[in-house]
């Protein structure tokens, strides 16, 4: 491991990753496994083809919001309509700044009318928490950063529920898509949420750190395949799911990121609302497109998108999909968002591509 790796944080599962020959790399300040012994492709295939993969995503942050005005506070700082959530429901949402651009994309869990739980990106944790705590001063709401105490596992793939059920203190079948249960796993308190980032059925499991190793080992022993960051990104990109730092950043608003479906302009005032409304009126400054190469090659992040010999955009996520071939998500000039020839420049050569709809491959989430 390199010298810089010594400063990296470790999740409670660090030793488990090493024991499974995880190749550890720096990621959002943590040492995380990019792949295990079998390699990213086999890991990917296991999740896509009906198995269950287990992912340590403890690097992500968790924030609890409680108080009489917790709902009002979250309506003001997040884009989605928190008033529509019922107990046990979770939705995708975002934090914007006043200019309407992204601070982060998040998920919001409603535990009860005055009690919510947020999952935030690892790389944005401190920024998000500072922002939330500053904004919370105007509300009767308390914001607590629980990231350091919480282990987050994702168990994804067709076999996820079957593997998880013997550990769980509730009937998992009763948890619908984007619903969660406050339950226990091997006796430890846990949130089991039917959510994920792979396009497969499965769960995200929030646990106290003290339970991490037992739950991980039990799931691995039951046949869950450990999955590293490389396969996770393949699974994510094939679904066309946005990732902070790629499709989402402080340079774009939900109008550009095609995330108006989580941005409810009519729910009342929220941070960034007027800027987003204005941008919606003016039109997107960049067009987000999903592209598929019609010739051989692998598009990668930052590769130029060209049209008529001119650079018109940039790839934000790109990969070789075992099922769909060379696929990419890119921002291009707005005029080229829906028509006009596009190619991705790979090592100086313009490889033609066509616009496609996401997901690039079929999603198997439970609707």
């Amino acid at each position, binding site marked *: 491991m390199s010298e810089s790796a010594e400063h990296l944080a470790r999740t409670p599962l660090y030793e488990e990753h090493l024991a499974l020959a995880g*190749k550890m790399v720096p990621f959002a300040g943590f040492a995380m496994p*990019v*792949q295990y012994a079998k*390699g*990213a*492709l*086999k890991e990917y295939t296991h999740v896509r083809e009906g198995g269950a993969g287990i992912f340590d995503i403890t690097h992500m942050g968790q924030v609890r919001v409680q108080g009489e005005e917790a709902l009002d506070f979250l309506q003001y700082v997040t884009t989605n309509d928190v008033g529509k959530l019922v107990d046990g429901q979770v939705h995708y949402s975002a934090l914007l700044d006043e200019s309407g651009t992204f601070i982060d994309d998040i998920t919001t869990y409603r535990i009860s009318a005055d009690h919510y739980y947020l999952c935030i990106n690892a790389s944005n944790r401190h920024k998000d928490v500072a922002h939330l705590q500053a904004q919370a001063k105007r509300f009767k709401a308390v914001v607590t950063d629980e990231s350091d105490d919480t282990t987050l596992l994702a168990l994804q793939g067709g076999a996820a529920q079957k593997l998880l059920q013997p550990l769980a203190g509730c009937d998992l079948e009763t948890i619908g898509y984007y619903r969660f249960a406050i339950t226990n796993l091997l006796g430890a308190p846990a949130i089991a949420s039917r959510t994920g980032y792979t396009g497969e059925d499965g769960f995200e499991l929030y646990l106290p750190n003290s339970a991490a190793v037992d739950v991980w080992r039990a799931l691995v022993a039951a046949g869950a395949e450990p999955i590293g960051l*490389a*396969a996770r990104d*393949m699974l994510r990109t094939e679904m066309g799911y946005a990732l902070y730092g790629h499709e989402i950043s402080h340079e774009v608003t939900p109008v550009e990121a095609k995330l108006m479906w989580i941005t409810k302009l009519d729910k009342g005032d929220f941070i960034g609302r007027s800027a987003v409304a204005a941008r919606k009126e003016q039109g997107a400054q960049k067009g987000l497109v999903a592209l598929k190469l019609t010739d*051989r*090659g*692998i598009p*990668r992040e930052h590769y130029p998108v060209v049209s008529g010999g001119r650079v018109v955009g940039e790839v934000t996520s790109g*990969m*070789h999909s*075992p099922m769909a071939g060379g696929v990419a998500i890119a921002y291009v000039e707005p005029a080229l968002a829906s028509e006009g020839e596009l190619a991705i420049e790979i*090592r100086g050569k313009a490889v033609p591509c066509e616009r496609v709809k996401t997901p690039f491959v079929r999603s198997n989430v439970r609707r």
Partner: protein
Amino acid sequence: MSIPADLKYTKEHEWVRIEGDVATVGISAHAQEALGDIVFVELPEIGRTLAVGDGCAVVESVKAVSDVYAPVAGEVIEANDELSGAPESINADPYGKGWILKVKVSALGDELMDAATYATFLEE
């Protein structure tokens, strides 16, 4: 890590098998291991003239793009087209089915290492 004794190696982890005036070139077991699952190989055009150190192929894994540099000078006389459909051969058999190109040699690179030297180089 396998390092066949009959091959020469470069610091960039290519291997060369020299038979008469033909050099077969691939990447070492160490290189494929470091790259991980290889999913794409860009092969050179037949007839292209290479100088030592020229980029002559590109190997892409799930996460990384890696250039293959010519360990010898000469003319490309063959490329392993099988890799287009089965790039994973480089992972499975880097010194056999995973060969990348053949060159009619006009000059060898100055810095080619024998197997023992390459083994030491990898340890450093």
